[in-house]
């Protein structure tokens, strides 16, 4: 049984109380309605990312329900074919761009990484706020368009020529392309913030080989975002240019090529899958460690496995294009490369099993989600081996077999760890525990519901049912399987409702958690729950991989930072030795206004190319105002400057 044993740590000396009050004055987020838009602390922005991404998950889940209702009966007319096209595109695009990446990468990086490395905010906090608003506005735009019957309807990857100017009339694909622009800018900003936070803002003593595995995972993802997202930046820009400025990138009549879109898209799209599940595996490593009561087995293997997966992710994209008639030699190469992914993933799974087998396992809800992940994710990996081989892929391409495969890897690789992570970190965000009973109930409902929904898709796919059809005739032998799938959806729906209810109720009346209810070893548990606006009263130093478990009896704390400003300590990248002091910018309305200006430019460019050119002027003005320094802090800093000796 895990108990809360840290009540005494909240007792502060008088000096500490004064220090806390001073830090509170300096770090407090601005109050009031306008203040809401000025907030820059990573816990504030992280919470917003979480709730927004959760909202989009629920919306996309409801759209899935509409599809399951439509497909439960042959030749049903609940949805028209046109509405169905919009709904499956909205479902896929929302899940990938508005839920999975913002949840698994942005939310977790923004909220947890600064706490886990022991600093007071994320690097570039204003950029962080800007990235959130862009993401939120992008999602809002996408759904307003959908409500106005202009929802994207060409599939989540919006292939040309179907989405090109000749076959995609109206503005639907343009909204899709600009959704991509919004979400990619936001993810890229968070990627840079994450890398800089981890490389420069770690607590003294947290050398590279002591960085928590979870943080390693987010760093690997951040690098993947930086090198993968430019692919979709280009492909969606080219698509928009072809549609609004009459460029000819994808027009084969005048030298264009439709496969260029697919190459660029999947250059991004395949790493995208991994940048959704690498945070998942990093969460699994964290939860397994905490609930096995031992340091993780094979730390180095786990880190290198994630790095290797990150690299390999860039050598696989053509396996999404086996059916496009590319040369056979390329097909063989990409088949081999795709199968190689099993090596680092397998190594990680063996490390987790070894950790659990040699530890003292405490079986609580977060660990149940991890066990569910093992089963579902391995299943998805198995069918991955099927579809990585060209002859099988050609047979099942664009059938429900593929739909089953990617739901097994994505829900298995991301949603199971996510729900585990919600249960695990909920006490840190709210200060209260979630109900164990309801947690187990939602786990079992989800686990059973998931398999009932998605396992029959393998079979119906092998029986030839194509993806993205809005209905089917009664005599195909698909009806029963589809009905089982739709029943499974009801279980999933109930499970998510119970999870939400559990969150809602526990936030109000759950048991008080204390700073470290799971007796975990990473630094986010070294401060109160929820953390104060300055994160740590005493900035920590680190003595081992699990900072709390490995701390010496009198582990030093950092002193000497100015407490009348938002000061922070920078440390060296490799050994995390103290290197310098710096100051975070204060709260500001300008990132929000810059995000509004940027959104107007992006949305304007859907309708006219002038949207970007004229729209760039307010963007430039708001960004200059954002950058322009204030006199008082500038003078304060100047008075205390110490220049680095060269």
């Amino acid at each position: 049984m895990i108990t809360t044993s840290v009540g005494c740590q909240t007792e502060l000396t008088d000096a500490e109380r004064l220090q806390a009050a001073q830090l509170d004055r300096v770090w407090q987020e601005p109050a009031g309605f306008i203040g809401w838009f000025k907030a820059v602390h990573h816990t504030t922005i992280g919470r917003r990312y979480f709730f927004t991404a959760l909202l989009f998950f629920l919306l996309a889940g409801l759209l899935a329900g509409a599809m399951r209702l439509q497909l439960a009966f042959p030749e049903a007319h609940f949805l028209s074919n046109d509405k169905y096209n919009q709904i499956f595109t909205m479902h896929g695009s929302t899940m990938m761009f508005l839920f999975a990446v913002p949840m698994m990468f942005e939310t977790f990086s923004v909220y947890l990484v600064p706490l886990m490395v022991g600093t007071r905010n994320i690097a570039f906090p204003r950029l962080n706020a800007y990235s959130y608003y862009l993401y939120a506005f992008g999602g809002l735009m996408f759904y307003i368009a959908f409500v106005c019957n202009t929802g994207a309807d060409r599939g989540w990857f919006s292939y040309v020529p179907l989405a090109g100017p000749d076959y995609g009339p109206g503005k639907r694909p343009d909204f899709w392309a600009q959704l991509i622009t919004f979400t990619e800018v936001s993810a890229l900003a968070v990627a840079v913030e994450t890398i800089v936070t981890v490389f420069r803002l770690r607590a003294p003593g947290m050398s590279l080989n002591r960085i928590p595995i979870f943080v390693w995972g987010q760093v690997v993802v951040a690098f993947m975002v930086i090198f993968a997202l430019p692919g979709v930046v280009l492909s969606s820009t080219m698509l928009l240019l072809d549609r609004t400025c009459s460029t000819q990138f994808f027009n084969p009549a005048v030298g264009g090529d439709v496969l260029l879109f697919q190459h660029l898209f999947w250059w991004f799209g395949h790493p995208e899958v991994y940048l959704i599940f690498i945070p998942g595996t990093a969460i699994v490593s964290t939860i397994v460690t905490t609930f096995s009561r031992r340091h993780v087995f094979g730390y180095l293997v786990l880190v290198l496995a994630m790095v290797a997966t990150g690299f390999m992710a860039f050598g696989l994209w053509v396996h999404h294009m086996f059916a496009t008639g590319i040369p056979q030699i390329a097909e063989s190469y990409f088949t081999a490369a795709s199968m190689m992914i099993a090596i680092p993933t397998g190594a990680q799974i063996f490390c987790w099993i070894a950790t659990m087998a040699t530890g003292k396992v405490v079986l609580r809800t977060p660990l149940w989600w991890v066990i569910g992940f093992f089963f579902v994710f391995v299943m998805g990996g198995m069918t991955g081996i099927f579809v990585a081989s060209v002859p099988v892929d050609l047979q099942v391409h664009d059938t429900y077999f593929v739909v089953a495969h990617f739901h097994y890897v994505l829900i298995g690789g991301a949603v199971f760890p996510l729900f585990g992570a919600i249960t695990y970190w909920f006490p840190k965000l709210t200060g209260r525990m979630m109900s164990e009973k309801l947690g187990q109930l939602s786990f079992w409902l989800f686990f059973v519901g998931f398999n009932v929904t998605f396992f029959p898709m393998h079979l119906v796919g092998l029986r030839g049912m194509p993806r993205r059809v809005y209905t089917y005739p009664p005599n195909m032998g698909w009806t029963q399987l589809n009905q089982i799938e739709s029943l499974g959806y009801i279980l999933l729906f109930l499970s998510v409702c119970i999870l939400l209810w559990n969150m809602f109720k526990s936030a109000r009346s759950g048991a008080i958690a204390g700073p470290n209810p799971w007796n975990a070893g990473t630094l986010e548990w070294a401060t109160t729950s929820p953390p104060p606006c300055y994160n740590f009263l005493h900035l920590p130093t680190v003595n081992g991989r699990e900072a709390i478990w490995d701390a010496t009896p009198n582990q030093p704390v950092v002193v000497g930072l100015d407490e009348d400003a938002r000061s922070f300590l920078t440390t060296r990248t490799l050994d995390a030795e103290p290197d310098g002091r710096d100051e975070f910018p204060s709260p500001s309305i300008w990132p929000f206004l810059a995000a509004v200006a940027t959104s107007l430019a992006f949305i304007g460019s859907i309708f006219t190319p002038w949207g970007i050119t004229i729209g760039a002027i307010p963007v430039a003005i708001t960004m200059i105002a954002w950058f322009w320094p204030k006199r008082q802090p500038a003078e304060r800093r100047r008075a205390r400057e110490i220049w680095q000796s060269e």
Partner: protein
Amino acid sequence: MAERVDRAVLDVSKLPTVGFGMHSITWWGIMGMMAIEGMVFLLMIASYFYLHSRSVEWPPDRNPPDLFWGTLNLGLFLVSIIPNEWYRRRARKGDLRAVRLGLVILSLFGIANVVVRYFELWHLNTDWSIDAYGSAVWTLMGLHVLHLLTDLIDTLVLTTLFFTTLVEGKRFQDAEENAAYWYFVVGFWVPIYLVIYWAPRWLHA
């Protein structure tokens, strides 16, 4: 309670507050932006050659872009490296006069680059809407124009700031990093120049 008073501490109060290069976190941020934008450039160059591999004639029935204005801009870019490097080094020493002068010179270079770029655009000898070749040339050029303009505005704002009383150590970091970003703009013009102006000539032969 008593042992809390004697708590071991790591005193950082003597550490510098103004550092350059890897010691500055904005420098890391700029490096991140360069990695992202550099990747976009590389993929666009790759797309150019992909489209070429799908075409019989390159450029299709027209002349490649005229060499004069592009080469002139290349010359301007390369010459600008000298004052750029000079003020970058002076910024690390906190030399206010040198940085002011350097920023003014670089602003003038930036304006000159933009003016020459305007003439370059008139001598590309293609329209973006004729075919995929034209689209690729204009998009590649457009990406570089975007960076040139962003850097110019950035330099102008920083120059203005350096003539106010708001100058402090952080602004010298900005100046140093502004110079670093200019290297990125110049550095990527070399391959883009070769692709836009010389690739059609070499591939044609």
